[in-house]
């Protein structure tokens, strides 16, 4: 039983939540990031239409003190939360300095598990810029990576950035990333 194993205790930032519905089944994906362990985690909750919502309610934009147990994997991502948890507001964390560090990390993961899904990263000081008629994110070294096609909150992102760099929490893999949230004036704002 996963819950009986020892997990990773940390302060986990809840970067964002994505909800999808298919055939009357609702899936909630919570993207988490360990403040001290620098590890991402994905917590899933499922419920069917008509069912009452599950008890564990995570608030995107906040952080929790909790112990997470990862499902077995070469590149652990999915996890469950061992109760109980305490809620705090979301704090600052160290992100990767730029895209170079991120692609190196991605290559490392691909080495261990070539076929996998997207995962969260935190990258410092990114600025939205235009290139070839699309929006990209530029890091401190003037290197750019494309924003995922169909990213719906571009205007909110631009408004928060105002053309200035911001630390961002991103979700993606390979060559497409979408921001989950940004740190703006010291506060984490969801996108």
């Amino acid at each position, binding site marked *: 039983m996963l819950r009986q194993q020892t997990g990773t205790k940390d302060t986990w930032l809840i970067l964002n939540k994505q909800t999808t519905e298919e055939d009357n089944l609702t899936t909630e994906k919570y993207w988490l990031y360990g403040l001290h362990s620098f590890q991402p985690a994905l917590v899933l909750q499922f419920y069917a239409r008509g069912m009452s919502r599950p008890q564990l309610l995570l608030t995107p934009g906040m952080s929790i003190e909790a112990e997470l147990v990862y499902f077995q994997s070469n590149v652990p991502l999915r996890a469950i939360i061992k109760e109980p948890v305490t809620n705090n507001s979301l704090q600052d964390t160290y992100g990767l300095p*730029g*895209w*170079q560090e991120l*692609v190196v990390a*991605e*290559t490392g993961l*691909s*080495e261990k598990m*070539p*076929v996998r899904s997207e995962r969260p990263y935190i990258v410092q000081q990114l*600025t*939205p*810029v*235009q*290139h070839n008629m699309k929006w*990209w994110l*530029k*890091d401190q070294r*003037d*290197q*750019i*990576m494309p924003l995922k096609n169909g990213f719906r909150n571009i*205007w*909110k992102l*631009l*408004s*928060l950035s*105002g*053309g*200035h760099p911001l630390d961002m929490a991103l979700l993606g*893999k*390979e*060559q497409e990333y979408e921001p989950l949230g940004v740190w*703006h004036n010291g506060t984490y*704002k969801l996108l």
Partner: protein
Amino acid sequence: MWNNIINTALLGTGKKQLTPADLPADLTPVAEKIMKDKSLDGETQFLHIAAVMLNYRQSGVNPVNNSGVPLQPAPAEERPYCTTQAIYALQDALDMDLLPLVTYWLEACHDKGQIVVPEYIPVLLDTAVSQKRIRHLAMTVCGKRGQWLSSMNADWQFPFAASNEDRWQTGSAEDRRQVLQEIRQSYPGMARDWLQQTWAQENISTRTEFLKIMRTNISEDDLPWLESLQEKNQKVKDEVWALLKQIPSSFIVQSYWQILQSAISRGPGQSLHISLQLPLDKRIIDSGIATLSNEKNISEEAYILFQLMGSVPPSWWESLFKADKEEVFTLFEKDDLGKRFIPALILAAGRFKDAAWLRLLLEKSTAFYPDVIPLLPAAEQEAYALRLFSNYPQDVINYLSNRTDEWGLEIASEVLRWMARNPYQYTRNFFDKHVLQLPPVITEELEKLAPEEPAYQATWRNTSEHIRRLLSCKVQINKAFK
């Protein structure tokens, strides 16, 4: 390279095969190893190569060395951000999808000299796309960042002029209407000057609309310009007449008074002498005095007198008869024909904004005159409306609906009590539209206003709950911008 793989998969390995030469040099050793393994059939070899190629591609991702087109950073803001409390209130109003509350929030924020936080700019600008009336307000509240952001999105490019004069000279029709109304309220002379300057370029529709706006704060000062206008279009002419008829010193009102003085005089004691021989001239008819009445039991001449009486200041009768208001009233009331002219006195009191005459007339009236009561102070208006509510519920509710300020508790209670018994006519929709007029203290009374009929009680409970939610958001906005 990857397209090559896709094409091979689509065509089938029978028609097209991969060779090591097709792949990047790095992968040649691996590819050769796979192709040499004869225990694998063509398709499996292809899949192995594709798998290796996939990971090669994934692992080889690099960011692009290009700084892109830099964005000119947004200029710094000049005004402070609103509080977090204010943001919660805004989110509530947006969640309830209530334009009146969102507008109320925007006005409160603007009046306090604050701006909204950046993450709410897109949603406010989007709202302004479909709601023209709040565009100027929304742009102001979105500050410098809003202007910066909207320059990048064609949908948000509302022409935004900073000064009132700019808005008048270069704004949209709606903008010009709004600014003229604002200026006419505080600086009526300036509004007239502006209109005079652009008059020749205005079309029929704008001339008509703007003349209507001139009704606010109409005065003698407007007379020279109005009397100089030579309009050809009937609609515009009608508006000019409507304005002239509100200025006592205008030639037309003076003409009316000439006729009335010769027709109505004071007889001995408390009697009135009314002559129906009326010397009319063309200008009287042109000014909108009708000669045919649709009422059966009044003669043409009496009908004309009625209209003339409604078009001169009621206080003039006091000097003519050398009597005070009460006596003048009694003189008309005691006369068989005269008493039928009393409603005309009410119209006249409204037209010439004589609150004292109005007070007297409405006190004695058993009919409801919604058009004139705005002249009285709010408390008196409500007392009058309350007195007549049971006989004219719909009319009173219509009058209340047109007021922009909050209703007093007493009248609000009466009205809601009545609405609770008419749930099909007064649904949540009505309360959504009139949230700004409902006094927050009414939430404590809602239970007491419940209808007696059991069939309506459940509905009233739901409606009350909804009203509480609306008012709670309004109170939040008030507190946030105190």
